[in-house]
């Protein structure tokens, strides 16, 4: 079959067009991809900014929580103990030696209790710094403080917790734990708290379980204390993880946090 020059013409025009369209589309694709790259970089920068802001906020919250605890303890325990010591010492009459000895012993006892309380407070203040040394240490310290009240039996277990750490994530996890414990203290009326911290396959898992009154998880956002849970979820998402909450009235509550770690 003989091909005419006209047909060759058309063929070449078409092939040339296809060959010119190819780099044209490539150019458009690269331009589009580059724009997406820009958007991605901007989003990444925004996320980093949000993360940094959240870390700062968390640090302030941890500090605030510490200060509140210190304030409450100074007012409720140490203040009371010192007042009692002062009253006891004021009521001593030198003439009655036996009674005076008894009162001095009581004052000494109150004083040693006061020193013990102050030591615990000192540890609490140090606890804020402990996060930098390790999450497990900071949690242990927090538990000591919870147990001090004598209302809760706390069981704390750690499993495969690596030495490799991420200070920022530790702070956020610690704050989440504080928030969960605050909820238990304020609303759960629990007697037993089980805390489990484990790390495997580059995933950190924190489970906090209580035997309190529980609640309907669907109703939480409408209630005031839903804000705490909202913060917990937001912070978990910020770390690329998630939070699961299982609870029903009368069966206690289980909060499970899973995040990539370190």
């Amino acid at each position, binding site marked *: 079959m003989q091909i005419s*020059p006209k047909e*060759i*013409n058309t063929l*070449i025009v078409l*092939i*040339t067009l296809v*060959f*010119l369209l*190819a*780099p*044209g589309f*490539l*150019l458009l694709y*690269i*331009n589009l*991809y*580059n724009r997406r*790259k*820009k958007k991605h*970089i901007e989003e990444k920068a925004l996320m980093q900014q949000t993360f940094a802001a959240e870390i700062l906020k968390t640090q302030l919250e941890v500090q605030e929580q510490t200060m509140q605890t210190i304030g409450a303890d100074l007012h409720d325990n140490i203040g009371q103990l010192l007042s009692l010591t002062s009253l006891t010492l004021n009521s001593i009459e030198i003439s009655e030696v036996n009674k005076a000895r008894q009162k001095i012993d009581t004052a000494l006892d109150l004083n040693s209790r006061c020193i013990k309380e102050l030591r615990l407070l000192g540890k609490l203040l140090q606890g804020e710094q402990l996060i930098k040394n390790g999450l497990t240490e900071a949690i242990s310290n927090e538990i000591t403080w919870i147990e001090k009240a004598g209302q809760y039996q706390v069981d704390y277990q750690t499993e495969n917790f690596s030495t490799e750490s991420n200070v920022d994530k530790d702070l956020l996890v610690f704050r989440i734990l504080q928030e969960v414990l605050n909820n238990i203290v304020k609303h759960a009326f629990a007697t037993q708290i089980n805390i489990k911290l484990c790390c495997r396959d580059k995933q950190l898992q924190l489970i906090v379980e209580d035997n309190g009154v529980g609640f309907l998880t669907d109703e939480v956002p409408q209630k005031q204390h839903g804000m705490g849970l909202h913060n917990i979820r937001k912070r978990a998402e910020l770390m690329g993880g998630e939070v699961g909450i299982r609870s029903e009235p009368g069966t206690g509550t289980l909060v499970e946090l899973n995040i990539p770690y370190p």
Partner: protein
Amino acid sequence: MLKSFSPNITVEIICLIFAIIFLSKDNQTTWKSMILFLLVICITEIAGILTKRTVNGNNWVYNIYLMPEVGFTSIMFGHLLSKYTKGKVLVLPGLALFFVLYLYEIYCHGIYSFHVLTTTVMSIIFISYGLYYYYLLIKDEHYINLKSYAPFWWVSGTLFFYFGSTVSNLFFTIFNTEHSILFSFRHLIYILINIILYSFWSYSFLCRYRQRKSIL
């Protein structure tokens, strides 16, 4: 005779003027060498016009021009690719292949017959360089404002040219021998791809100038 070539020589001279204005004070020799390359292009184009009607035709002019064309283009690609990889080493096998093919074609059919095989293979090699550059550009995590990025426009122009000219190269035999009516058609295609090439290059020189000025 001059009429059919005028658009080509016009865009080439405009591009040369752009190169002189925007690249003469460039701090990179590779970019600066574009002035020399464009001067060679203009001289070749004029020589091509002047020798077209001679006994031996003008194919030998374009065959000689192949050497600076491949040389300058390879050096430029080597320079641009060196931002991401060992670009200069990468273009060496291409250059070696060019010399082998060039000598082979001279041996087979002399200097007066156009070196279709060398031109086609080199077009494919330059397309590969261009596509590889695009790939590295996409892979790069850093954002670059392509609108004012000189290397991107230079590579794009080159890519358009070699993509378009490959068709012409492949059909060159038909154009040249069987159907002389199509000979001028080949030039129309070349005019189109030349306009694209030199527009992109001129714009890349402008981008280069702006970039230099903003640094200063």
